[in-house]
């Protein structure tokens, strides 16, 4: 009986040291795990300090019980935990993939087009963008447009961002720095179309867009004034603007851009441009001189509700052409058309913009435009053919616009456009446009 009573007591007495030993073991294991966690945290911080900032952020503590997080520190010298083995999972290699975006531009038109060949409904363009940092010295930006007529490279260039002396160098195919409108992709225009002066004199939607080299520099200027000079050298092929018959028919573009903040809400941009290349219509040159100005107002406290932008560009051209537009024909004439536009866009609500534009542009009556307007000229190589005269004619137009932004990734636009062509035709049209954006399209320059 005594043994029976004593046995459980002895068992309990023996169990206490055993339990104490278990507790001690448990505490030691918890301490070792705590050390392991600290070591892993330090390794993560070290790795993250060496990675680009676009990597995912780290949750350091659960929201309900926030705890102080140790600052980044090198791994402890006397780590007792085993090192973690193996690299990141295979999916991590996708971190170097470029940012991919697609912007769709659907256009519709109704009314009397005045013989201008624009379709009633058109998936006008889908622009695919691929943008990435290449290395510590350069980045790449490629924009491919898919239209109903085919695929083209709108821009594909590499920018060297780390040159000394405030220089920046670009190489590739790019929209030339002539004025402002020529640099804009379709989806960032505040209209469904391009102004008449662009269509008549600067290659229309295709614009001066060519393969070449570009160097620009921020020029030292008085305080508060931003001054940038750009010089570009291109192959010399831009539809309706330049044509390179041989390698030496390069074209050049020079642009001086000045900017000043008038107040925190208002600023002004003024630019001067010059470009010269081989004429598409004669064995001679085509030269364009341009002045552009943009005035913007956007009160910072109400920037998502109110803004105003006034834009204008003036272009003078000196275009060599041959009789009948046959480049090999003897005799070279020169057309000197002038054109301009003035526009304003006012944001009157978070999602609503109202705009207006006035256009006036001369053109040689026989010189092509983009889009095409009907020409009365015919090219004829037969002996005795007398080429018709190519006087300057003047096109005048006006537009009223209303744009609705369901979100910052989509736009719906309506435009009432009236155009009086120099040949006496008048077009009255209603145009409408849907622009939708997918993916990570980088912000365009200001």
């Amino acid at each position, binding site marked *: 009986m005594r043994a029976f009573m004593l046995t459980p007591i002895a068992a309990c007495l023996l169990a206490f040291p055993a339990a104490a030993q278990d507790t001690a073991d448990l505490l030691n294991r918890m301490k070792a795990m705590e050390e392991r966690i600290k070591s892993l945290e330090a390794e993560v911080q070290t790795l*993250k*300090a060496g*990675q*680009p*900032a*676009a990597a*995912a*952020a*780290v*949750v*350091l*503590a659960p*929201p309900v019980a*926030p705890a*102080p*997080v140790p*600052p*980044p520190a090198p791994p402890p010298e006397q780590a007792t935990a085993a090192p973690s083995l193996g690299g990141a999972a295979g999916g991590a290699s996708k971190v170097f993939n470029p940012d991919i975006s697609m912007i769709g531009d659907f256009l519709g038109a109704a009314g009397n087009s005045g013989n201008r060949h624009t379709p009633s409904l058109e998936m006008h363009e889908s622009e695919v963008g691929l943008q990435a*940092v290449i290395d*510590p*010295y350069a*980045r790449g930006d490629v924009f491919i447009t898919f239209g109903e007529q085919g695929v083209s490279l709108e821009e594909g260039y590499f*920018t060297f*961002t*780390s*040159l000394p002396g*405030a*220089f*920046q160098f670009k190489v590739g195919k790019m929209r030339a720095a002539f004025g402002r409108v020529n640099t804009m992709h379709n989806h960032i225009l505040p209209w469904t179309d391009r102004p008449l002066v662009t269509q008549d004199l600067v290659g229309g939607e295709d614009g001066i867009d060519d393969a070449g080299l570009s160097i620009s*520099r*921020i020029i030292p200027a008085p305080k*508060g004034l*931003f001054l*940038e000079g750009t010089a570009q050298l291109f192959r010399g092929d831009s539809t309706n603007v330049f044509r390179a018959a041989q390698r030496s028919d390069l074209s050049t573009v020079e642009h001086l*851009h000045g*900017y*000043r*903040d008038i107040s*925190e809400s208002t*600023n002004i*941009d003024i630019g001067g441009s010059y470009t010269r290349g081989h004429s598409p219509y004669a064995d001679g040159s085509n030269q364009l001189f341009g002045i552009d100005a943009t005035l913007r107002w*956007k009160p*910072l*406290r*109400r*920037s*998502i*509700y109110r803004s105003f932008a006034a834009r204008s560009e003036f272009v003078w051209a000196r275009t060599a052409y041959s009789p009948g537009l046959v480049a090999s024909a003897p005799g070279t004439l020169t057309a000197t058309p002038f054109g301009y536009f003035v526009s304003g866009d006012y944001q009157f609500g*978070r*999602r609503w913009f109202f705009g207006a534009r006035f256009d006036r542009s001369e053109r040689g009556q026989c010189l092509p435009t983009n889009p095409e307007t009907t020409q009365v000229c015919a090219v004829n190589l037969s002996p005795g053919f007398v080429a018709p005269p190519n006087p300057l004619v003047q096109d005048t137009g006006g537009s009223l616009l209303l744009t609705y932004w369901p*979100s*910052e*990734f989509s736009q719906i636009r309506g435009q009432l456009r009236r155009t009086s062509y120099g040949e006496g035709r008048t077009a009255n049209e209603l145009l409408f446009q849907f622009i939708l954006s997918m993916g*990570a399209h*980088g*912000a*365009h*320059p*200001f």
Partner: protein
Amino acid sequence: MLAAVAAHAASKLNVVTATEDLAAISREIGGDRVTVDSIAKGYQDPHFVESKPSFLLKLQKADLLEVVGLQLEIGWLPPLQTNSRNSKVQVGANGYLDLSQFCQILEIPTGQITRAMGDVHPLGNPHYWLDPENGRRIAKAIQNKFSEMQSADAAYFAQRYADFDRRLNEAEKSWDAKMSPFRGRKVVTYHNSWPNFCGRFGLQVAGYVEPKPGIPPSPSHTLELINAMKRDGVKLIMVEPYFDLRTPNSVAQQVGGEVVQLMPSVGGVKEITSYFQLFDYDINLLAAAFAKLK
């Protein structure tokens, strides 16, 4: 001696920050050894800043660019960096500091994310500076970076951090005391800018004036919000200074509540010139509003 003073002035770190909040903390740590300038103003929506060429002139000369990260600046900062002609401030360079790496980030989405959810932040909520503990982490990261770039002043920066930390500890006691009577209270906010602030001070966000991030209020959503606020007894609407007050005022009138225009950033109003004053201002405003609504 004049040469020494000139040399000292010349060796100041030139810091450009994305927001006034980072600038304020940088001034706390950097003192007279740094010059600090912010691109975004405290009273403007930091998602929609214009990439003006005048900012290029600031960035061109910067030694260090501090960003909030988590794609808060994705709509405007990359073209400024690319065109700054300054290799020091490019992403991943030594003069580029993303403070989100050092902070507690809330609301990191899991599962599928699409823009059907509005203008979501796929890497987590970027308004993390509105928790004083994150302010401490930001300050520590800035101290480490300043010390790395200007090692001769490391002791100075460490002493400035210690002082900032001490003052922040004191200030937190005062803020906790003021907010403790209101822990557990429900609020509605205009945009989802306040999860860190509300989590820290014990407020529960019961809804938003925006139906989805970046989408303006619609009549149907506003009606749902009013009904929900009446049902749950929510009376307070917190609105940032850059949003229109018409819908919040109308909702507040329907529920018998109040709209409070809180500042999410230093510089939101003239009197908020420091990180501490940001919380002083907002907490005093909230405490007064809650007291009035009880």
